[in-house]
């Protein structure tokens, strides 16, 4: 495995990110447990987790890159490909589907003129569908980055997209 890639992109945690990681080291009896938190920090700071970013995390934690890669690709919240500034995640599991999640997806596709899985040309929005987010009583719902938006209607979506622009 070559380190040259790292230099190419110059990935490195910010001082604050590195401190957070160091702080967390005290919380676990084994530093292996830091892999998920470290990937979160990497994703926050680098935008998404490409192979160089994964190599960087492997180097920082001194674990094999294969392990880092295996973990990063296992969990859906780690993005190995770039996404738009706002990641729109519509729940389409049963309770949401019963109350029109499919319609919400279609409405967003039309409004953003992209399909599920795509990013708008201005890189502002990526639209994906996800499994149950624990908001089934306030369905239909979506999550945009970290924020939950519940009881969605077309009007509500218009308002949210306007606000996010």
């Amino acid at each position: 495995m070559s380190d040259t890639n790292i230099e190419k992109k110059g990935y490195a945690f910010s001082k604050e990110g590195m401190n957070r990681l160091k702080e967390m080291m005290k919380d676990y009896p084994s530093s292996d447990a830091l892999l998920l938190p470290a990937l979160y920090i990497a994703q926050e700071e680098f935008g998404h987790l490409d192979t160089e970013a994964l190599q960087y995390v492997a180097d920082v934690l001194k674990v094999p890159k294969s392990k880092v890669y295996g973990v990063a690709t296992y969990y859906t919240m780690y993005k190995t490909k770039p996404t738009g500034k706002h990641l729109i995640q519509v729940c389409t599991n049963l309770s949401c589907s019963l109350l029109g999640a499919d319609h919400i997806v279609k409405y967003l596709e039309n409004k953003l003129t992209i399909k599920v899985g795509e990013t708008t040309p201005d890189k502002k929005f990526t639209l994906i569908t996800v499994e149950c987010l624990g908001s089934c009583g306030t369905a239909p719902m979506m999550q945009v980055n970290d924020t939950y938006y519940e009881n969605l209607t077309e009007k509500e979506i218009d308002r949210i997209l306007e606000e996010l622009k």
Partner: protein
Amino acid sequence: MVALYQGRRRSRAPTWYFNMNNILLKNINKPNSTDIETYLKGGGYKSLEKALKEYTPKDVIDIVQKSGLRGRGGAGFPTGKKWEFAAADKNTPRYLLCNADEGEPGTYKDRPIIEKDPHQLIEGIIISGYAIGAAACYIYIRGEYAYGADVLRRAIAQAYKKGFLGKKILGKKFDFDLYVHKGAGAYVCGEETALIESLEGKRGQSRIKPPFPVNVGVWNKPTVINNVETLANISHIINNGPDWFKTMGPEKCPGPKIYSISGHVNKPGNYELIMGTPLKDLIYKYGGGIRNGRNLKAVIPGGASTPVLKPEQIDVNMDYESVGAVGSMLGSGAVMVMDETVCMVGVARRLLKFFAHESCGKCSPCREGTHWLVQILDRIVSNEGKIEDIDLMLDICDNMRGKTFCPLGDGAINPVLSTIKHFKDEYLIHIEEKRCPVGYRHSEHCL
């Protein structure tokens, strides 16, 4: 320092929880309900004091055993028994893990506790840690609950400041730490051994049991894993005694219970009631009946992995034994209600897509079986199924049942088996008449 409140929740329906029993949800409508001062004013952390000053760890285990509390995460294992097993293991340090992964579709009952009353959970965790002699607890919270994780972190910091966490808690020889650990989007990590793997920084794939986590858990140490709602009960049991707890609901599984109601009801939401509340009341009395004056077609009583019930079967009390007697399971108590516009083949297909997506891939019956079932269901909802497909699916389910490492595989077959059992006519119409029996499309794939 981690920025607080990065995640937010926005909802136009602030009343997605209904406090009708006044125990687990009693604090949530208070202003600043997440603040430790509010909690203290309401008598908070009194039961921690009582436990540490009046009881030995063994006393606490005995009290919880006597209360009859059973786990609220789905399996219903007696909490006191689990603690006893772990406490009996001389290997140290021991660990407590709070399962806040809440991923079972239909379930959102732990969320109000986490987001609105974190100290109730934290107090329960500290008492539980004392009982089993744990050195620390990790709250494993699903990554999407970023807001909840921030609320918990802030509350934990407050509890440290007040001396309820850390070294020599309340002047006793009891040191205990509490951390929040975020998952990253994998339903199976709610399964206790997968959760352990994930916390250890690996792909969250289930371990085969035995050995059980009470003996060989996280970092190979004795480990107790309890659900958020289970742990939220503890301070109340210590405060009011086991006999008080047993006055609520059936003898075999007493106590308060939060039911998450969703789907085609007029008033979906989290309802705190007692164990054994009739399912019919949840749908009609509390949930306000079926939307748009339609008729009820089917109910899933305990989250996506529990078998579907027909309207004729809803005269049942929501406790483990009673729901089991009608062929389903209490699970997490997440009631998903479907009206007459719903195609049950579509429901089975949608849920199997979920299980196929979430299968960790460690054992082949679940990894392959879930995908085969999706392919067959895909073809049936597209009106391209064959009559043999029904037997083929039953055969696949048979080859999964009891033959998988973890219960995900067993749960995955339930939507298929129960819809074939109760709604076979709908499969037949899709296959023989090549049309959807209801024709009302909730989505492109009949759902």
